[in-house]
């Protein structure tokens, strides 16, 4: 038993090694491109304190540039930054508070990632059944209604949806708060009260995130299901007299879910980008807001930190999708060694 599995295990190890190397390479590529773009673009983090400040002269600007090391050649700056990055040191923020970038990011990370994970789960919970139903009842009235909704969902700008929801639930009905993470009296609430308060504040943002992903996901699920239902083994399953339900749940669903897993991994950059808009509308203190502020203040270290983090999250998403794919599809496991 052990012997027969050894070559397979070796193949898996090799695959993981290759994958890891590739991920590091991609990360390196992303840091090089972003570093160059950001540092070569006009404007500098010292603008706020010098050019825009009539009391500061050229001398103070020079002092600041020396302080931040901006007067050195770009490749030296990059190398320096990269070496510190390897030690997980993202540097200090170039804004007034000058706190470590990593600390500031870590404060904001739970909110953004939490909202995204919750809405991804909601999206899957809704999109998978919807996709299956519209594929199985193709061209029925229900399928047509779903298709119309999907097209509307695709075209809906997330920020407009957010505005409409605010207008309806926040202002018309007065059911939900329209901005912020907590109410003013948050500190005086008991644990349950705090939880309810958070849920009420996050309901609309999570809803916006979910609707954003729903259209694409259910459409994709439908397409994959249709593709699977055309396969010969489905015909075989039907021919041997299995019920429709068994054919779909046991034979078709698992195969149709595979591409959807990949889509999940690919949707991470979009979610990260979307957080800027959604957090700014609902005034939520998440990563998106942090990044927006950093961009506005030309806070180089902070921007780079966010870009690297975004890339890492994206790559992690892809890797996770890859692993899930391997678990869900036995064919991939045996083919691993070839890649």
């Amino acid at each position, binding site marked *: 038993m052990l012997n027969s599995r050894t070559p397979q295990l070796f193949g898996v190890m090799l695959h993981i090694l290759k994958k890891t190397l590739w991920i590091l390479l991609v990360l390196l590529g992303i840091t090089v491109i972003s570093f160059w773009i950001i540092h070569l673009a006009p404007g500098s983090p010292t603008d706020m304190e010098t050019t825009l400040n009539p009391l500061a002269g050229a001398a103070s600007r020079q002092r600041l540039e020396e302080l931040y090391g901006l007067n050195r050649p770009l490749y030296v700056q990059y190398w320096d930054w990269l070496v510190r990055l390897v030690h997980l040191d993202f540097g200090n923020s170039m804004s007034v508070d000058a706190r470590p970038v990593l600390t500031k990011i870590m404060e904001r990370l739970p909110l953004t990632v939490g909202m995204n994970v919750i809405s991804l789960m909601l999206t899957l919970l809704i999109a998978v059944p919807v996709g299956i139903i519209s594929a199985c009842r193709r061209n029925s009235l229900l399928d047509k209604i779903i298709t119309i909704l999907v097209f509307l969902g695709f075209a809906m700008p997330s920020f407009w949806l957010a505005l409409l929801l605010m207008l309806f639930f926040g202002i018309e009905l007065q059911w939900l708060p329209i901005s912020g993470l907590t109410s003013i009296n948050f500190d005086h609430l008991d644990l349950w009260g705090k939880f309810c308060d958070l849920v009420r504040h996050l309901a609309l943002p999570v809803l916006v995130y979910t609707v954003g992903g729903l259209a694409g996901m259910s459409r994709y699920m439908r397409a994959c299901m249709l593709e699977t239902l055309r396969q010969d083994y489905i015909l075989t399953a039907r021919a041997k007299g299995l019920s429709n339900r068994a054919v779909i749940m046991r034979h078709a669903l698992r195969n149709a879910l595979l591409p959807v897993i990949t889509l999940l991994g690919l949707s991470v950059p979009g979610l990260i980008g979307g957080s800027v808009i959604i957090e700014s*509308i609902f005034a939520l203190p998440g990563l998106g807001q942090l990044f927006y502020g950093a961009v506005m203040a030309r806070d180089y270290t902070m921007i780079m930190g966010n870009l690297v983090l975004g890339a890492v999250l994206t790559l992690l998403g892809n890797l996770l999708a890859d692993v899930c794919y391997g678990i869900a599809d036995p064919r991939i496991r045996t083919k691993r060694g070839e890649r």
Partner: protein
Amino acid sequence: MLPRAIRNMLGRNLMLTLGSGIVLAMSLAALLAPLIAPFHPDALHLDHILEPPSSRFWLGTDRLGRDVFSRLLFGGRISLWVGFVAVGISVSIGTTLGLISGYFRSWVDECIMRFVDIMLCFPSFFLILAVIAFLEPSLTNIMIVIGLTSWMGVTRLVRAETLSLRERDFIAAARLSGTSSYHILVRHILPNTLAPVLITATLGIAGAILTESSLSFLGLGVQPPTASWGNMLMDGKAVISTAPWLSLYPGLAILVTVLGYNLLGESLRDFFDPRLHVR
């Protein structure tokens, strides 16, 4: 004969009719904006500030008393312009790289495809945001940056088409008769990839319009006083509880336009993709 063929096609396919109808109507409205608009888009009516829709101001007025309907029409010009130019850029880059990658294979292909992988892992909206903020938000910058960050899909598509086309007999025949690589690519392969590229481009316009309006909504897109649907919504947000119509119509305009291009793109896909007819 041709009009009838088109008429039949339109009659058969509701999606195509609706899509092309919306696209046509929106394009006409944008092109003829100066003729249709009842007021100049930047004209201030200071005695009619924040008025709800009426017979004089069809869709109401904003905080400076500007006519929302006129501004919507002119905002449409911006959206379409951004959509077309940005997609023009991304399609040009994508097609060129895809053709080269698919035709020459080997290390060129490897390099280009790995670059595509890297670009796909970029949190691109972050990057767009940073670059635009640094370069000063302007229409030109927005179009270029959106174009430069959205060519990867086209590259993959064109590469896949080229890979299969280059093995076909007519390409072998062209090569045997001494046609240069450049000539084969431009004259024989490129025209055969046009249909899928056209579909992606149509869907890409929708995407570019959405990105531009998101940027403008964040204040990093088209700058006031120039009207764009995104910055009209940004303006509207501040007075959403007292003047909800300001938050309503620009969003509706985005929704309908993007819907139009998506419908058109999808129905073109149905039309060109023979696999869907077999089903």
